[in-house]
């Protein structure tokens, strides 16, 4: 039986109603409605940047006029009401009526192929650009007439002032004329692009090279809307523009940035399309083609870029909403009244068995002797730990956490007093120079230690699931899907659906390993070797008795100066790292100040942390250098 969570490609969903039922409006609000340049999104060129799976295509599909119309035509459903509200927030609606007519144009590799033609760059760019425009016009007409909502003759194009001279080349202002001309252009150019042996430049057909600039000529479209005339602004959402050659993109982008253009134009692209430098988010690298971000164009980042805590919180809300929409589609859960996904993955802490607890307690006693901690000092430490736990907000305050905290604090104590003078005559129990502190970092470190010492689950609960997804909706669905499969097993076996912490950890770890084993992207093997090695070291260091990385480590730091040099070079390592970022193996934080130095943090992604038993909290890193990374490559 199909598990809806595991169906990653929403593009497959044929039926609009089904699509609308599961699509979450949250990205519209988060990325568009709350964007500081919301007002300019339909006027200036917009670049929408995100990792694979961040939901770019889903966003574009939802914003298409065809769907906007079907949402507005049925506002009786709650789902559609929510969607309409979000669309309005993002500026797609005005007074409950469409304000724009957007179409998604997939920029398949076909366009990149034009770059291989044996012509001058200007000609090649022109061919691709005109093909995009022709297809946009055809798609607009399809979207506007869709489902016989209106006839071609009920659609009228409104020209930009001062464009009269160009009207003829686009086929006039009637829908029929525009359609015919667009078809002609697209047919001629398609055959050139698709041919194995392209025609000589002097043999290019006229239809392909005669001027054709509908984006410059057309300003608005007048349509019939529920019996009244309505003027909408056309928007072309060019999806996957990263498939273009960088020079080709530069030329097309420059052409599309012309101020004369009144069409809205969005370019949705993967982060990795940018240079490695840009993937590593150094702000100045975003400027391009002599155009300035914010002045000449607007960037929308579909993840990252904002405060991390805020980002995680936002993602959790979105993910919960999405999961709840998918849940009713799981057949095995029918009649089980499962409406809230969150409840099925409770964050109730695991409990150690009495026997294991005794074993742990004995080990802590042994360590006390090993660290030469006096009973009195132990008592002080115990008080510290207990006081923290008593006041902590976290749900996991089980006795074993206290014990493991005590063990860490005793180790720290032993370290801090190790170089003090031992007196032969008194009991040696000096106060350390830096006083011990029991806080959340120690508690989290303790949980990691417990995972190693007793096998106590580390990764469970809805928030962990979200954090492990690195704000990537598709990845979240995959992980959630694996949990759902296990819940199905519970259903089959006639047990409650909710999974214990141990079951959740088991599923998540297995799935994470499966995802990593399935990595198939450029340099995947290198990337795997690198993260496996880094993760192994991080786990090892996190498990030192004194938990010197606090929460635990999940990153390495390389000095900014070294990284900047690397990114400027043509070293293959930059490509390896770029693909690692783009495909969710690592994340990068630039300019992280610590210990008076400026670091570039290379952090393991959530999936790697799940697979290797690392904390999902940020900040703990090992100081390394580039030679270290190079050494890991093979």
């Amino acid at each position, binding site marked *: 039986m*199909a598990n809806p969570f595991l169906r990653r490609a929403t593009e*497959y969903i044929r039926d609009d109603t089904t699509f609308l039922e599961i699509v979450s409006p949250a990205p519209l609000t988060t990325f568009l409605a709350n964007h500081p340049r919301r007002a300019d999104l339909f006027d200036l060129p917009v670049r929408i940047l995100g990792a*694979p799976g961040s939901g770019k295509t889903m966003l574009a599909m939802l914003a298409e006029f065809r769907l906007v119309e079907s949402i507005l035509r049925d506002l009786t459903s709650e789902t559609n009401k929510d969607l309409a509200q979000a669309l309005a927030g993002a500026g797609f609606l005005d007074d409950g009526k469409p304000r724009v007519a957007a179409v998604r144009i997939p920029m398949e*590799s076909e366009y990149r192929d034009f770059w291989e033609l044996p012509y001058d760059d200007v000609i090649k760019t022109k061919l691709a650009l005109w093909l995009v425009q022709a297809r946009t016009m*055809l798609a607009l007409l399809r979207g506007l007439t869709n489902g016989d909502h209106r006839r071609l003759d009920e659609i009228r194009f409104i020209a930009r002032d001062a464009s009269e001279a160009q009207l003829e080349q686009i086929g006039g202002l009637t829908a029929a004329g525009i359609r015919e001309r667009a078809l002609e252009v697209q047919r001629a150019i398609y055959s050139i692009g698709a041919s194995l042996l392209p025609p000589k430049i002097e043999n290019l057909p006229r239809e392909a090279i005669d001027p054709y600039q509908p984006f410059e000529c057309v300003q608005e479209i007048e349509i019939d809307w529920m019996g009244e005339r309505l003027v909408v602004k056309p928007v072309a959402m060019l999806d996957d523009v990263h498939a273009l050659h960088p020079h080709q993109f530069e030329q097309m982008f420059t052409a599309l940035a012309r101020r004369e253009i009144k069409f809205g134009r969005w370019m949705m692209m993967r982060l990795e399309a940018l240079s490695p430098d840009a993937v590593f988010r150094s702000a100045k690298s975003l400027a391009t083609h002599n155009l300035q971000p914010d002045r000449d164009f607007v960037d929308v980042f579909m993840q990252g870029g904002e405060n991390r805590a805020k980002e995680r919180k936002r993602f959790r809300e979105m993910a919960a909403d999405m999961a709840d929409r998918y849940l009713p589609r799981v057949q095995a859960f029918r009649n089980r009244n499962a409406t809230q996904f969150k409840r099925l993955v409770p964050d109730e802490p695991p409990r150690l068995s009495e026997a294991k607890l005794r074993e742990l307690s004995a080990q802590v006693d042994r360590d006390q002797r090993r660290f030469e901690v006096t009973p009195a000092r132990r008592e002080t430490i115990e008080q510290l730990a207990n006081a923290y736990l008593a006041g902590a907000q976290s749900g996991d305050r089980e006795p074993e956490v206290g014990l493991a905290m005590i063990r860490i604090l005793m180790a720290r104590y032993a370290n801090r007093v190790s170089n003090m003078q031992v007196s032969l005559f008194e009991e040696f129990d000096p106060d350390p120079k830096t006083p011990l502190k029991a806080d959340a970092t120690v508690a989290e470190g303790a949980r990691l230690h417990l995972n190693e010492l007793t096998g106590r689950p580390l990764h469970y609960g809805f928030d962990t699931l979200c954090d492990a997804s690195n704000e990537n909706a598709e990845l979240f669905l995959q992980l959630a899907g694996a949990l759902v499969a296990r819940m199905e097993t519970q259903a089959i076996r006639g047990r409650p659906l909710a999974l214990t912490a141990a079951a959740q950890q088991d599923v998540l770890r297995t799935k994470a390993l499966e995802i990593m084993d399935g990595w198939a*992207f450029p340099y995947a093997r290198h990337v795997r070797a690198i993260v496996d090695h880094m993760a192994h070291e991080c786990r090892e260091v996190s498990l030192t008795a004194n938990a010197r990385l606090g929460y635990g480590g999940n990153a390495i730091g390389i000095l900014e100066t070294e990284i900047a040099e690397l990114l400027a070079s043509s070293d293959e390592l930059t490509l390896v790292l770029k693909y690692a970022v783009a495909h969710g193996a690592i994340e990068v934080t630039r300019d992280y100040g610590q210990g008076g130095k400026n670091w570039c943090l290379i952090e393991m992604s959530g999936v790697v942390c799940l697979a290797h038993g690392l904390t999902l909290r940020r900040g703990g890193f090992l100081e390394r250098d580039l030679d270290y990374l190079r050494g890991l490559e093979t």
Partner: protein
Amino acid sequence: MARPYWQKCVAHFDDGVGEFIKSYFGQADRRCVLVAAAGFDPRSRRVAGLLAAVLKERLTGLFIREERGTPDAELIDAAEDNVKALQADVPSSEVVSVEIFGNDNAPVAGARIAAVIGNYPIADDVTDVILDMTALSIGIGFPAAKLLLEDCERRGTAFHIMIASNPELDDEIASEPGDRPMAVRGFAGVDRNGSALEIARIWVPQLARGRSSALNDIGRSVGETYKICPVLPFPARDPRRADALIAEYETQLVDEWQVDPRDLVYVSEHNPLDCYRTLSTLKARYDMTVDQIFEPSIILSPIGSRVMAAGALMAALEHDLPVQYIETVRYTFDPNKPLVAETSDMIVHLLLSGPSYREVAASATVDAPAGAQA
């Protein structure tokens, strides 16, 4: 171009190929051009060796070296050994390097191979052109086949495809897919953007071991489909091969593609014509089904076995079907590691054009069961 005589395509297998080569290429007036891969694949030398032994100096070679980034040293060594052996077998030959990726890492194999073939002079006295698809990737092999076939058809000469296949060895060669699914150059299919009817697509992915991630991405690029009909090998040398693939592709079949089990397509692992016939029948029937309601489109993704891919190639050429694939960035293979099961290569020969079909090409009668012809 319609080629109804392909329903009667002359094919030879295994020992029959050797016999055919002896009697056919043994004729003193045959002048032949062989286009083949000069890569690491241990099977690269099989076909050239068979032909050279009979044709000797009447054989000219164009050997293609597919260049992909920085491969492992053992693979480079293996490729160089193969190049030397091929040149020794076919002294009148040249080796041409073809870059598979552009400087932006976009796959450009199709445009590059088209330029190589387009500029390769084939002498007027050449009677036969043989494309050895054994070790050519489909991004290279398909465009090459199309150009060579069309050229042979113009001249009225014979075009052959030969393949040395070994499914067990295929399993040992792992490939890292690139990140851009796309149409094979020259195989974008009919332009349907202008159609007044809604397009209804059937996607026909060929399942192969270790390629699920690539097929996933290709599937997404295909987008919305009317149906997905995965192709499985049967009959196969290993009778459990199809079942093992079904288990390997469980997530795709059940969750991602939601395939109706009745839509699984079984084609021979041994005979490319079986795949060709099956796809031709599917095409004919589907066209009839959706006629006047939808615009039909059947998209092929023949990754994996070259034998089945050759059948898909014939169907794509014959019916102008789009072929969607994903380029391989890097191969992983240990040439020195013995196979799990010692297996022999299977050899296939197909004759696709030329005087041999004069009679059936001219006649209107077509040797096909009812319902298999459009």
